[in-house]
């Protein structure tokens, strides 16, 4: 029997509900962190993601106008780079998505041109991985330890802001 998938763990999903992370008023308190992540790492897109059971929800967004992701505020979870961190509880870096074994056939890569990704998990005070603070680029690139340190600091600030929303 295989281990249960953390994505569908009811306690983790309850934590997302308790923190009211699906509310539209979350973006204004997280968007500046996404903007800072993109700016500091010199990449066009950054998200504060919340990984649900079957979809990624965009809780905070920074990116150019016209991206469909800004309209849908999410995408199917099977396309999600951020879901990896929910399962591993670790940072996840993809420097060349076209050659990455898990993501080279991902539609975000084949159709939308994603080429690099770096994400740091958002872990609540109750120990649940909610999602990631991540950056996304359209060209291959490497990520230095200093880059990840920037993301870690912004992820910690995101969790602090998120925890203030706890309703249960």
């Amino acid at each position: 029997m295989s281990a249960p998938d953390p994505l569908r763990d009811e306690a983790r999903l309850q934590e997302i509900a308790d923190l009211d992370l699906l509310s539209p008023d979350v973006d204004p308190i997280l968007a500046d962190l996404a903007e800072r992540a993109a700016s500091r790492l010199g990449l066009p897109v950054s998200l504060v993601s919340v990984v649900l059971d079957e979809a990624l929800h965009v809780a905070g967004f920074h990116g150019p106008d016209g991206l469909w992701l800004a309209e849908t505020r999410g995408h199917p979870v099977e396309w999600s780079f951020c879901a990896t961190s929910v399962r591993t509880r670790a940072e996840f870096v993809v420097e060349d998505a076209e050659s990455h074994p898990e993501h080279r056939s991902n539609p975000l890569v084949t159709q939308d041109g994603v080429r690099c990704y770096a994400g740091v998990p958002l872990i609540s005070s109750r120990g649940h991985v909610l999602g990631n603070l991540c950056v996304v680029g359209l060209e291959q690139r490497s990520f230095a330890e200093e880059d990840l340190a920037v993301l870690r600091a912004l992820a910690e600030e995101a969790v602090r802001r998120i925890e203030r929303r706890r309703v249960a």
Partner: protein
Amino acid sequence: MMPSPPGGAFRLPGYDLQEPSEADAVAALERVFGPERAADRWSRACREAGVLAGHLATWAQLGRAVASLAEQGGTTAVVARSMEIRMRTFARLSASAAAAAAGRQP
């Protein structure tokens, strides 16, 4: 508005994304809550949406049932949001594909 019924048979080319269906919604609920609790939640959502569980005939009916599911709150609302996002993504990318096929941008 999407075509009806939401049978889940159509796959969006390139994205290999299947049109969301009632069966997908029920399966998602079952993966989180197990069959019995999932059935309770779905039947209640359909009843309150004024549609017949197991017999949703249109995309609009599926949307109403999922919206009703979201009103149950808590973890059920989280699962409902997943379904909403999958429906929005399918609709948005289908529209883009149709527009591209017609030689214009949406």
